[in-house]
């Protein structure tokens, strides 16, 4: 159960990144994280129990908090009409310039890659440590590993079903949801990294989702221009 909760958290981040930035880089991030985790387990084995998880949570949480707030800011400005929802010309010019400056085959979305990598690596490490801790203390390491693998398969199957449903959600609504999730996980992990004890542990994530969603709605309502016929535009 503990492993499944961690896997769902990783899956949420991968979905969010894949849907909004592209699946290829997100899956590359997942693959790289799994390779790194496998290498870590192969190299250190049970010694991984001593990894300073609080520091890891603080760093990953801090990055997610910053990136999530940046993302939410843009989504709020777009929803209020202060920023173009999809500036195709600017995106086209930016993409052309980026492709001209990049080496062949280097067109990976680095942000998607890093976000997926961090999410999967941190949660994966927590799964590994949970399996090692519970498995070695009960002298059932094999059983713990098999149970974690079953949890992974179940979560992946459920994820694949949910992913199909998500494809019909409008783009900006999806970006707003991703921003809410990133800030939620960022806040939660920063707190855990600073040894804050959240009421209800992981279930407190749901409260954060609700709080941040309401805040976004309030901010969009507050800054929406009263006269929509006179458009204003934000540069950043």
């Amino acid at each position, binding site marked *: 159960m503990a492993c499944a909760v961690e896997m769902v958290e990783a899956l949420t981040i991968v979905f969010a990144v894949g849907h909004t930035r592209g699946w290829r880089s997100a899956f590359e991030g997942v693959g790289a994280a799994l390779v790194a985790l496998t290498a870590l387990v192969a190299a250190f084995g049970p010694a991984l129990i001593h990894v300073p998880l609080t520091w890891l949570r*603080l760093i990953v949480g*801090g*990055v997610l*908090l*910053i*990136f999530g*707030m*940046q993302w*939410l*800011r843009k989504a*709020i*400005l777009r929803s*209020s009409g*202060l*920023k173009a929802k999809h500036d195709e010309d600017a995106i086209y010019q930016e993409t052309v310039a980026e492709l001209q400056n990049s080496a062949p085959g280097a067109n990976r979305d*680095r*942000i998607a890659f*890093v976000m997926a990598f961090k999410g999967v690596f941190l949660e994966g490490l927590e799964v590994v440590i949970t399996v090692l801790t519970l498995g070695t203390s009960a002298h059932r390491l094999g059983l713990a590993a098999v149970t974690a693998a079953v949890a992974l398969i179940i979560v992946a199957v459920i994820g694949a079903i949910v992913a199909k449903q998500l494809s019909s959600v409008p783009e900006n609504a999806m970006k707003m949801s991703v921003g809410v999730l990133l*800030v939620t996980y*960022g*806040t939660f992990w*920063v*707190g855990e990294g*600073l*040894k*804050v*004890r*959240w*009421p209800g542990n992981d279930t407190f994530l749901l409260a*954060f989702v609700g*709080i*941040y969603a309401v*805040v976004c709605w309030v*901010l969009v309502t507050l*800054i929406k*221009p009263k006269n929509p016929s006179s458009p*204003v*535009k*934000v*540069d*950043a």
Partner: protein
Amino acid sequence: MNDPQPLVIRLIKGFGMFWWDFLVGDTPELFVAALVIIGAVSLISESWHANTVAVVALPVLAILALSISVKRASDAAKRK
């Protein structure tokens, strides 16, 4: 395209530029706010051992930072 800089220097510069764009970008106020939030909550949680205050302060400070950044962008847009 002959770049005079060695590969290692270019890699380090590219790595640094990526993280700068990723974390600071065009919203340095959010980067600074995150550092302030971490510092403040660290003080509350680890030095004062006030868990309830930390539970409230962390999301409230994040919401405050986001609101200020959105307000600044909104005001700048409306002035144009």
